[in-house]
């Protein structure tokens, strides 16, 4: 936990510096714009510039991440005192299986669309991770996809991407849309 606290503070500090750098960038249509010219409180007598708000807030974020680092050094915050692991064996396994499952779910959406990916993700989770009977997992997975189709595509007219399964839906469009 101690190491994670320090690494996170360091990553946030780096990210804040990056945000400060990006905030200072002038508009793309003005090639003469000087970086950080837009962060002042009264730029060209037109009040604060476009980078004013994000720049100073990112600076505050940077200062606070340094303070988290100081608190870590002085062992002031609970995570910096904790001897527990950031994620124990169960946590790492859960994070890999559930988080990994979610990432795979989104990749699958890109390939076979929502209606192919939803039943597969639900089956994976309920059957393999939840250890429920296979028929229950299949039933919930298919019902969820059918419900989503009628709710989004048919009722709300929000067409969810179908990827490679698109041809299978053409007859359904003819009937319902």
């Amino acid at each position, binding site marked *: 936990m101690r190491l994670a606290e320090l690494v996170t503070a360091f990553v946030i500090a780096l990210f804040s510096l990056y945000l400060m750098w990006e905030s200072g960038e002038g508009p793309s249509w003005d090639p003469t714009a000087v970086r950080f010219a837009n962060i002042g409180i009264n730029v060209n007598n037109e009040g604060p510039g476009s980078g004013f708000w994000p720049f100073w807030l990112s600076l505050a974020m940077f200062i606070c991440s340094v303070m988290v680092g100081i608190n870590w050094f002085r062992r002031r915050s609970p995570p910096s005192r904790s001897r527990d692991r950031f994620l124990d064996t169960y946590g790492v396994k859960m994070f890999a299986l559930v*988080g990994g499952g979610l990432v795979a779910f989104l990749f699958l959406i890109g390939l076979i669309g929502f209606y192919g990916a939803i039943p597969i993700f639900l089956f994976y989770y309920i059957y393999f991770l939840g250890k429920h009977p296979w028929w229950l997992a299949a039933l919930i997975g298919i019902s969820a996809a059918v419900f989503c189709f009628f709710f989004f595509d048919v009722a709300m007219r929000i067409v969810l991407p179908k990827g490679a399964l698109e041809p299978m839906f053409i007859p359904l469009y003819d009937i319902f849309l």
Partner: protein
Amino acid sequence: MEVVVLLLDGVWAALQPTNLGLAFLGVVIGLFVGAMPGLGSVNGVAILLPFTFVIQEITGTISSPMIFLAAIYYGAMYGGAISSITLGIPGASTAVATTFDGRPMALSGNAEKALVIAAIASFVGGTLSNVIFTGAAPLLASVALKFGNPEIFALMLLAFATFIGLSGDDIPKTIISICFGLVMSAVGFDIISGAPRLLLFDSTQWFSRGIQFLVLAIGVYGIGEMLWTINSSRDSLKMTEANITLARVWNAIKSFPETWRGTTIGSFLGFFVGILPAAGATPGSLMAYGVTKMVSKNQEEFGKGRPDGVAAPEAANNSASTGAMLPMMTLGIPGSPTTAVLLAGMVIWGLQPGPLLFTDQPEFVWPLIGSFYISNVIAVTVNLACIPLFLKVLRMPFSILAPLIFVLSVVGTYAAYQNIYDVWLMLIFGIGAFLLRILDYPLAPAVLAIVLGPIAEPKLRQSLLLSDGSWMIFLERPIAGPITIAAIILLLLPLYGFIRKRMKARKAS
């Protein structure tokens, strides 16, 4: 008198079949999300917000989707108590204080008494606060009409100062969370000059449209919190059986008057804590519990199953949820994370939250206020009638509920903006939120900040333009001045606490 007529009109509109049906559905969903550990009103409202577009489309009114979401908010306040009492873990953070005495009552065989007291106290708290709300809201709105840019920015500063000064979380981490939300709200383009800015990693595909608040809200509450719950609730939960018979429920109802002290304190204190920008129902219920215990003659009985200890936090969390609506509807400043999501919803439906709402959109405001009363009646009835059913639902394995919520989050985010990059971003925020949550980073401030950012930034910049860049504009004006000073005091409060602690430690050594 005019208010009474408007309210009666509003109640009548809320009683129309469509609105009544939506309130009923909202309450049932709210009771469910409130009762399920790991889910609270803010999760329910954030995940279901994309689905309200269909309600708006079908009903053609803007009050109906809001009635639905407000009903979820109320229902969740009732539902939180069910798991606090029978499982011993709060269904939502707003019901933490209910576990202190609710759980011991259940363990000593009085689960049904605790459940009934929680439901009735919630009803009393909700209704009393609705009456105060109805009287106060139009008055506050008329005062707020005089507010200019500096006043509104000062109020927003107060909202963030409340988080920093009173939340009790690690201060640098709270500020990081707030600043992160505010900077993320600035991604895409500058609202004033229209110049593109913060196109992170030079990706126009991902960031040119800005980061929508729902992407962060669903990421935090639909993915991050769920992962956290799965990680932290690994031990199987033991449910205490409630012996529900009509006679026992009736006896419990008859014993309710003995909790008058807790209910009264909870109702009033909850409302006023709820009004504080960004405070909300969780601190409201904890404070109500603390004060009720403090003024009680039997302090030693608290924590061992005292009915007052259940009534106070339950009356308070319902009352605070109405209180939190007051600044949201009259000033456009949310009083809690859930109202921040509701506020963003109002903007999406094309409303401009703030004092003008009462004069320009009475057809939105009064049916909504009417529905607060109706939702409370529905919630107490459904709650009392369906306690056995909810106890069954609570047995639903988390390993079925969690993936369904993940699917709902992914589909909801896509449906809201129809952009797959937003879904990826939502997942990245969700995973980041989970990792940060383990390290005690508070996440609600970030969600509040991404909602308030697009309102706060123009107010600040226009104020500074008006003053030629002088910050004194926030101190010199008669209304903005006291608000800014209050915000500064709140910001300095932790520093004062720190110095006092150091001095005590020095004296002791």
